[in-house]
């Protein structure tokens, strides 16, 4: 796969995730006031090994600010996404994705390169961290931990399932068009 193609894939991924996020923000799910922030799926699947972390942090910060503008919550998502990108980098050194030839690290984490178990731990841990940060910063000083537990918990599970199904979908698409 040429370098140009990779950027195209990232770009379409980015657009897909952000528009999915906006649609979810519109479609009101009123089950325990839960919602999900699936756009973090884009940042979860960025390349990790030998890349410029500073660039990713800056990108995350600006995308976070844009999401904040959509949700009228200045700074909350920007804070949470920068934290997520930094922790992701640390976590990936503990659970490295393996490339096809079994000797090297894969360039980017995915369901395919990590396996279901590792990928689940990776995604669940980071989504849990992200959602707790967002909901706690939002409810700063107003609510106790236990009143918002169902909201946070359901949101995490929803995000996890949507991110995993997005992965499976992209694996199917890349198999058929032989981009891997």
């Amino acid at each position, binding site marked *: 796969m040429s370098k140009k193609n990779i950027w195209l894939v990232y770009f379409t991924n980015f657009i897909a995730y952000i528009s999915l996020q*906006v*649609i979810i*923000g*519109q*479609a*009101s799910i*009123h089950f325990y*006031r*839960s*919602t999900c922030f699936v756009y973090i799926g884009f940042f979860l699947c960025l390349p990790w090994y030998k890349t410029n*972390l*500073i660039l990713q*942090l*800056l990108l995350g*910060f600006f995308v*976070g*600010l844009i999401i*904040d*503008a*959509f*949700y*009228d*919550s*200045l*700074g*909350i998502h*920007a*804070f949470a996404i*920068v*934290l997520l990108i*930094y922790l992701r*980098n640390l976590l990936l050194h503990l659970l490295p994705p393996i490339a096809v030839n079994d000797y090297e690290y894969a360039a980017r984490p995915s369901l395919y390169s990590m396996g279901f178990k590792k990928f689940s731990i990776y995604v669940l841990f980071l989504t849990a961290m992200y959602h707790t940060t967002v909901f706690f*910063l*939002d*409810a*700063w000083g*107003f*609510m106790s931990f236990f*009143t*918002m537990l169902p*909201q946070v918990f359901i949101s995490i599970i929803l995000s996890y399932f949507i991110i995993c199904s997005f992965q499976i979908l992209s694996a199917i698409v890349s198999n058929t068009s032989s981009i891997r």
Partner: protein
Amino acid sequence: MKKLFRFLYEYRNLFTFLVLESFGLSLVFNQNFHTRFKHFNSSNLLIGSVYEFFSNMGQYPHLKEVYRQILNENAYLKEQILQNRMQPDKNLDKLIENQFKFIPAQVINNSIIHTKNYLTLNKGAASGIIPGMGVITESGIVGSVKSVSEHFSTVISLLHTDVLVSAKLIPSNVMGTIRWSGCNPLQAQLLYIPRHLKVEVGDKVVTSGYDAIFYTGIPIGIVSHVELSKESLFYNILVDISTDFSTLQHVYVLVNSLKPEKESLECVTKSYYE
């Protein structure tokens, strides 16, 4: 010096991380940023257009419901006109009568999940909306306008923990303050009702009209829970909010033509005594 630079370079990722995080936290907690970045919310033209696009897509299934609502409202208004014709209120000044005007608008974004919730409307400064105006529906109050752009406006919902609305109980005419507690989007608290008064479950709560945003008598909700502990000065009252925030579609923005006059008078009086 060289060592310092090398140190900074070695830990450049960590430092970028820390700088961005502290900037993010200061954005969240410093109110100065909120005023400085006031165009950085959903009344922004770009974000408003995106919301309007998605909102228009999701509108068609609700058209029947909206049609029914408007018919009901029409009937109610006709009834009121008839009542007014039967017993016209001659004491009312012509200007006071026309004090409030309504601007109909459509909700294009709405949330109930946060502790600070906002709505976005598809009308802005071009239709005559300015920050500070009240927003209502036919069933009750919604909130007040926070910021406007040319074609969109952001509204602070009643479901926002910083919003205080002046209210009164209907049979007893007791003044109080409505505030949302941040947990249940169906209930709000009624504060500052002193303990010597009598409050019962089922009492109506309406706006008092003292804040110059709303006129008197817009429904807010119905008292659903009254509690009086032995040592507290005030009642502990929960109110079922009459507006259903999860299905909000069409709202009216209230234009109070006498608001500047009232506020300047109050300001003059206040400065005289202080």
